[in-house]
């Protein structure tokens, strides 16, 4: 757990969050402290311990393949910042 190579620019970019230089400095330092604290998990012997992803041990929770009503187009787009002709409008996708 080498938190020293924590690169706030890279991670903020992955998370798609623009940070000001001040925020970068402040959050970077705070996250350094937090990662330093989190490092204590290294002490823990987790040999042969199963990872836990869910708080309750359910399995095979499925729904029947039944069609249920969709919502009207108008409702789907009601909150859209920008929409035209039934589509959500975004800046041109290049890829």
């Amino acid at each position, binding site marked *: 757990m080498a938190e020293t190579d924590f690169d706030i620019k890279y991670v903020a970019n992955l998370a798609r969050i623009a940070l000001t230089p001040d925020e970068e400095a402040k959050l970077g330092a705070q996250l350094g402290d937090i990662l330093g604290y989190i490092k204590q998990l290294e002490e823990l012997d987790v040999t042969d311990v199963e990872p836990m992803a869910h708080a309750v041990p359910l399995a095979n929770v499925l729904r029947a393949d039944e069609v249920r009503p969709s919502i009207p187009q108008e409702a789907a787009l009601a909150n859209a910042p920008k929409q035209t002709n039934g*589509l959500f409008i975004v800046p041109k996708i290049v890829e």
Partner: protein
Amino acid sequence: MEYETVIGLETHVQLKTKSKMFCGCVNQFGSEPNTNVCPVCLGMPGVLPVPNERAMQLTALAGYLLNCEVPGFAKFDRKNYFYPDASKDYQITQFDFPSTTTGHVDFEFGGGIERVRITRAHIEEDVGKSSHFAQHSGVDFNRAGVPLLEIVSEPDLRSADMAYEYLNALKEILIYGGISDCDMEKGMVRCDVNISVRPRGAEELGVKVEIKNMNTFSGMRRAINYEVPRQIETLERGGTLVQETRRWDDIAGITESMRTKEQAHDYRYFPEPDIMPLKPSESWLSEVRSHIVELPLARKQRFVLDYGIPAQDADVFVGNVPLGGFFEQAVSGAKNAKAIANWVINNLQARIVETGTTVDELKFEPAAIRELVGIIDAGTISNKGGQEVFSELFENGGAPEEIVEAKGLAQVSDSVELDTWCQAAIDANPGPANDVRNGKDNAINFLKGQVMKASRGKANPQVVGETLAKLLKS
């Protein structure tokens, strides 16, 4: 230096379910944009996914058809990436514990049978569809959340044509199993192609290039046929290849770089906390297994072997399963399978296509074709009479022998009547008769024609020939 091409495919296939993977919206192509959507597939705040059981059954069934293992534990994961067509900005997929693993597909290629190993086939959700305009793009989420099976092959393919045939075989298997309609026009099958080249005989794989999102098989073949020489030429020029993702430009007929390994996504997979793991029970799996169907290649081999029909005929029955089923019922207990196959393919199939009906809707039983071939072979009716019987069967149903009777189609093989007609023909045509006597065997056909005419087609042509020969030699 000689190079070897190494190709692996990741094929995405939309599953044939009524509703989407995680919500009740209809799984349907071609609707008005953003009408088959709900808060769940739009990724609204607070919504939760609940997996579609049918999709899980189809996934397991596909696994069995691809000779995969279906493990006792599988789970869903989130694949994180921001993209306008991903409504949650992560895709629910299966990462380290997929629903099926390690199988293979056998298919015909280059005159033999090839085997491509399948790494895994896992379930995930489709994304929305973007359209691009001059200044901006627009997103329709109707497709978002449609269940998608991703079938990952090992790098066992060696050429564009082989990849093409593999895809066709895969498609046929999935259609057979009712897994997917594989309608290319509706974008139900898309694939990513991993291509590398290496000096022939080398163990190590070359630098891998991925071509994303091919939506036609022929486009994929062209893309490989462009990409392989590009890679070889680069190497031969002394250049180096970089691991990258490329895009196929179908109009220009070239591939272009999209991003290199360094710019690759960091997907940050982790277990989907909103969905519980899958532990398929034996009874659930055995229900799935009860839907296993015979695979196309096995069917073809069986038809050729068991019925002794030509491979091309077997191909027809592989391509058209109901017709093949009809044939199998017709041929049961029959002597002349080839003739039955001919009738089913040449006559029945043609009429079905022509009239737009289906095998299920036919007015007669498969046994009628067996009977029909039987009476033709017995000489009771001519081939031409057979056509008439068949037309009647197709249009109104009934039993062939009764139709023959009702229409007076039976051939005359009775020697007294035939003798009379034949003698009359000989007497009326002394020239051709003498020609036959003088060894010009072909002249007998003229006499035969006269007899058939006189009998209004009812004389059995084989018996006519024999009778004429007998009378002329005596």
